């Protein structure tokens, strides 16, 4: 993917904690297991040589267990933590080179963040929490409240503008967090495990809400999570992190169909493949004994969604991509995937 067309482009990003962090960058030591590195040099390489590009309007998910460096990574992208090395280019501007004033301006206007623990200001009303970034940027009270009211409507917080955060439920509080991040109309939104602190049911609502907002507003998002199902649900592409490094990056389907290593495979094992894989991955040539039914189905149909049509067909169904039939599937192929048979 080229830099020019990316909303955000990260190159060789490193974050090393401890003494003389620069020495660890690109050194063989960085590859040592965590405990060994700490023993040897006193450092922790929280983010190691991470590179990726996010296209405009894409939802890019970074997924990993706790301690994998994903939260450090997202803080490096906005320089809440100064990275040790590497570059982050936002719409053509390398934010690593921005001085303090420029960085503040970028934060006030170009990107925004949503936090796991919401990070709301308890002494301010909902509306003043939402308008905070505008306020510190010197926008008049009238204008910023008008804008805040727009986003309040957008995230479904009507009627709560003058409440205080502690009067709201967790889910509602995170809606305030979302509204606050949207208020500046940012080019990129960073969401750091925004729903991890919420109940499962509310989490699902909020995920749907993010999908809706993304569809309506088309914001570029970098979304951090430790929850694979959340990653699969929201992410156009997913990067899986482990011990500070990205072990695999790709679409949900790529990760599940071709896990790069045992770690990713282990991760994705429990995912119902029929919910993620498309029929393309199970299309096969017609066997001699079979005759095509003449029915077809697009190659990017999710297997689960193809089930009814294929079972109905009573025979092999053609998988069409770009106008050509690339292979056939029939009910047995689908049942194999649904039944948990391995198929790659």
């Amino acid at each position: 993917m080229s830099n020019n067309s990316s909303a955000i482009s990260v190159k060789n990003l490193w974050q090393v904690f401890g003494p003389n962090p620069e020495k660890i960058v690109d050194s063989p030591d960085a590859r040592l297991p965590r405990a060994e590195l700490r023993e040897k040099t006193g450092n922790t390489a929280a983010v190691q040589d991470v590179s990726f590009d996010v296209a405009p309007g894409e939802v890019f998910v970074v997924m990993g267990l706790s301690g994998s460096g994903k939260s450090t990574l997202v803080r490096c992208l906005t320089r809440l933590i100064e990275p040790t090395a590497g570059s982050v280019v936002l719409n053509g501007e390398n934010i690593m080179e921005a001085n303090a004033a420029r960085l503040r301006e970028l934060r006030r206007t170009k990107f925004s963040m949503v936090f796991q623990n919401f990070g709301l200001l308890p002494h301010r009303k909902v509306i003043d929490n939402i308008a905070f970034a505008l306020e510190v940027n010197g926008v008049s009270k009238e204008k910023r409240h008008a804008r805040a009211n727009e986003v309040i409507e957008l995230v479904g917080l009507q009627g709560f503008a003058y409440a205080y955060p502690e009067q709201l439920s967790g889910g509602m509080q995170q809606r305030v967090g979302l509204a606050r991040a949207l208020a500046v109309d940012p080019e990129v939104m960073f969401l750091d495990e925004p729903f991890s602190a919420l109940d499962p049911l509310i989490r699902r609502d909020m995920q749907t809400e993010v999908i809706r907002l993304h569809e309506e507003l088309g914001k570029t998002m970098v979304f951090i999570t430790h929850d694979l199902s959340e990653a699969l649900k929201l992410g156009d592409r997913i990067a899986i992190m482990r011990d500070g490094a990205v072990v695999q990056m790709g679409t949900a389907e790529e990760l599940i169909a071709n896990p790069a290593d045992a770690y990713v495979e282990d991760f994705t094992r429990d995912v119902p493949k029929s919910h993620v894989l498309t029929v393309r991955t199970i299309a096969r040539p017609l066997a001699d004994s079979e005759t095509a039914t003449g029915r077809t189905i697009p190659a990017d149909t999710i297997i689960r969604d193809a089930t009814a049509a294929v079972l109905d067909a009573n025979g092999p169904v053609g998988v069409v991509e770009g106008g050509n039939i690339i292979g056939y599937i029939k009910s047995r192929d689908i049942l194999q995937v649904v039944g948990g048979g391995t198929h790659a």
Partner: protein
Amino acid sequence: MSVRTEPAIKIAPKSIRRSWLLGGLLIIWVAVAQILQGKATLELAVPENSKFTAWAGEVADSIRDNRNDGLAFKYFFNPIREFVDGFVNIIREFIAIPNGSSSIPVLGWLGVISLIGFVVFAVSNVRMAFAAVALTFACGALGLWTDSMDTLAMTFAAVILSLAIGIPVGIWAGLSDRVLKVVTPILDLAQILPTLVYLAPLALFFLIGPASATIATMVYSIPIAVRLTAFGIRGVPTSPVEAGTSMGTTKRQLLRKVQLPMSSRTIIMGINQTVMAALSFVVIAALIGAPGLGKPVIDALIIRNVGDGFVAGIAVVLIAIMLDRSTSAAITKKDTFVPPSEADRKRRKLALITAGIAAIVGIVLSRQMAWAAFFPKQIDIGSQVANASDSAVTWVTENMELLTAGLSKAVTVGVLNPLESILANSPWYLTIAMITLISLILGGIRSAIVSATLLIAVVATGLWYDTMITFTQTIVATMLTMLVGVVLGVWIGRSVRAERALRPILDAGQTLPAFVYLIPMLGFFGPSRFTAIATGILYSIPIVVKIVGQGIREVPVNMVEAATSTGSTKWQLITKVQLPAAKKSLLLATNQGLIFVLAVVVIGGLVGGGGLGYLVLLGSSKPELQGKGLVAGFCILLLGVMIDRIAQYMVARNSAPKH
């Protein structure tokens, strides 16, 4: 077959060996001390100076001679003194002393009470406002209106100046790790510095009088304001701070809009503690000329007039309650960030206006009418209270002799004298060697070096014997404090009900100035070493109980449940699970206990405690002994540092992860 030693097995014999070692050492110490009893004790008669104290006296004299022309005085000490003096006087003239040519302060008694009522209502609530009015009135009724107002004025002056310095520095230390690193050792030192220590040196530079007293009070209370402010700023959760930063706040905006509002509760708590510290110090600062209630307390202690001292003590307690309760009410108000509803706010505004008008009426009356200006003499129950307390004390000492004289004798003969014979009445080199060895065993090589160095420094000053007398009293008082403190601490740690019952008493005990405890103790036990010890115990029990109780409460529930499920009795549970698990808290409590006890035991010099405290007090009244007094103060400091260091190393050792 090779045998692998398990680390767990290695630790057990080591700790057993350590206690054997200690026991053996103590036996040797006692034996040798018996043989060499009375030799090389370095005792220095009270009116005599050592070479070092004589030199210190000369230095003090030369400083005093330099007071008018010395550059440091001309451009540093004197301007500060004049500024502080001026500031204190403005406040005193406002409520306590005649203002200019007038015969009353700016506000007469009714004006002061009205203003107090209004201010307390504004920062807390109506109940507190009435309580504050009643408490202030009671001070007048005790016949101590002017002294009470002087104490209040001194306290306010010191608090305002302390906060003006302490809060900005605290904010700075809250924001910058580097600043925190610089101020932390100073704050730590200030915390272990017994109050008596810096009175004389400050008086030397700032003269005796309100200015010195205020500056000494500031030295005592600024660290508290700094510590709590920094703690508040650092205690703000990371996510709002990160959120603020991620939205592009400048540092100033972040501080003003996020960090300060979110730490306001802790900062107000800091103000509360600063006020209480200042009050307790202003009372003691009477020793260097602070006007107010401290004076009658000291006078009473010196001439052993328990009744009058008791009355003044009560006035101090009343003021302490008033200041503590009204500032704590302001803290409770900050429990929620949600402001009251619109209707409530309107009602409150109306009430404030009404109260304001009432206050103005009171103030105007107090400036116009004699009855509202001078506190009515007819209302004076001071002498009745004095008589009543005198007869109460007499009754107790006569009828409960076993409890007063008996207790005093038991501790003195049973614990104090034997320990004194080991520490003070045996050769100095034996004591130093043994203390150094014990610190080596308990705290490791670094604490041994610190102990040896500080003790040798004490020997060099020539006040070795007196230092050991004070050290003995400190140890005895701390042992008794720990005995009571651990029992009570375990009790409140295990029972929520006990905690609820004791907590207000402990809180109240903590807010009272140490001085106040001296008066009843003097009544019960007369002028003696035990009076100093008993006061030290009484003063330090609350903090010890609190720390132990918290330690017990923090023992993980599953540990307790596991022990209970294996059929432990209550006693086994306490001794085998809860106390060992709370070991760190016990050490911490001992450390705090020692420091608190030391601070009070030296004040006990006023009531026959002898030792360093007595020398300090003597030094401030006898010019030829002033050097000795200053050096005695320095020795108290050395003692405090030594005690604290040993305890800190022990804590560090016990909390270090074992491999």
